[in-house]
């Protein structure tokens, strides 16, 4: 037996037991091959890009929060001044009718009748409630403080 014989015999056996792709498989493989150039592997540094972006964002936040901005220095303080409190107390309630429109005649009577109905309902308007002595004294104190503030200012 020559050296080529084992190869020939084995070749026949390998051919007999080989698996040939079907037409559908070949079509699928060809389609996958067509996609290969479009699916290049991402460079390694791109794998780290999301982590770098998060780290950069975190760093930026830390740096920006460390420095007070110019507008932050000029923000009004949270304490309410006496003049603001007074202004909030003496602000008149908005009128029921739109500005520039005067109810006239029968309309006025109907409006007043409606107000009579409202009298029966419990009200929560702070200004409508009569001031007691303590409130008046407190108001006087505030008014005096406001006057002195205006004079000094």
């Amino acid at each position, binding site marked *: 037996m020559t*050296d080529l014989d*084992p*190869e020939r*015999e*084995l*070749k*026949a*056996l*390998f051919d*007999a*037991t*080989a*698996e*040939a*792709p079907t037409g559908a*498989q*070949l079509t*699928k*493989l*060809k*389609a*996958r*091959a*067509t*996609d*290969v*150039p*479009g*699916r*290049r*592997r991402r460079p390694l540094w791109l794998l780290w890009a999301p982590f770098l972006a998060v780290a950069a964002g975190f760093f930026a936040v830390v740096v920006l929060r460390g420095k007070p901005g110019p507008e932050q220095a000029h923000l009004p303080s949270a304490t309410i001044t006496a003049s603001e409190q007074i202004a909030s107390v003496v602000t008149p309630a908005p009128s029921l009718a739109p500005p520039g429109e005067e109810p006239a005649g029968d309309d006025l009577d109907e409006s007043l009748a409606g107000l009579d109905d409202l009298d029966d309902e419990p009200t929560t308007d702070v200004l409508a409630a009569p001031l007691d002595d303590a409130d008046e004294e407190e108001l006087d104190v505030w008014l005096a403080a406001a006057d002195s503030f205006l004079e000094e200012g």
Partner: protein
Amino acid sequence: MAQHVCPNVFVTGAPPSDDRLGAVSLEHELISRALDGDGRAFAGLVEPHLPVLYRIAARACGDRALAEDAVQEALTLAFERLSGYEPGTSFRAFLAAFAVRRAQTLLRGERRRRTREDASDVPPSLPNPAELARALQAAQRVRDALATLPEKRRAVAMLRLDAELSYAEIAQAVGTTEGSARVLVHMALKELRQQLADLVREEETSEER
């Protein structure tokens, strides 16, 4: 003298013919277009070799889905290394080398997975005729015999018997000299012949009939 080992493959020899020059220039053009991202060019480049690549992968893996994946991954690797391909050498050998490696790698992973999932690997029931069952058993015997060989001998056996590569092409594929490839093939075939003697005899008998 030109050595024409298998279809479309010349290895070494005398001045190339016009057909050969035309094939090389077409191959060169397809490669440059593929490197520019032309998928059709790449598909055209590898299409003639897909049956061989699939045959190698199926031989190594013994599983169709796995073989398809191995071919696809081999094509991806081949594309990534395409700029390193030397025009004039065997493109089939270039591709087959990736197919063998990827198939063996995937098979190792699949074996590990199977070992973890199910130790009792019961052969699938075959509702097919007896001949098909015998053919499948023979294919499994061949795969088992190949599995007993060292990795390099296994690779050269498949490159020789399935891909029909010449010794020079096998040397190119596994990165060795032609003389070493010849020795590796000889040793691999000798071991296979010993293990598969009964199947070889059956095959000869059936061929004679």
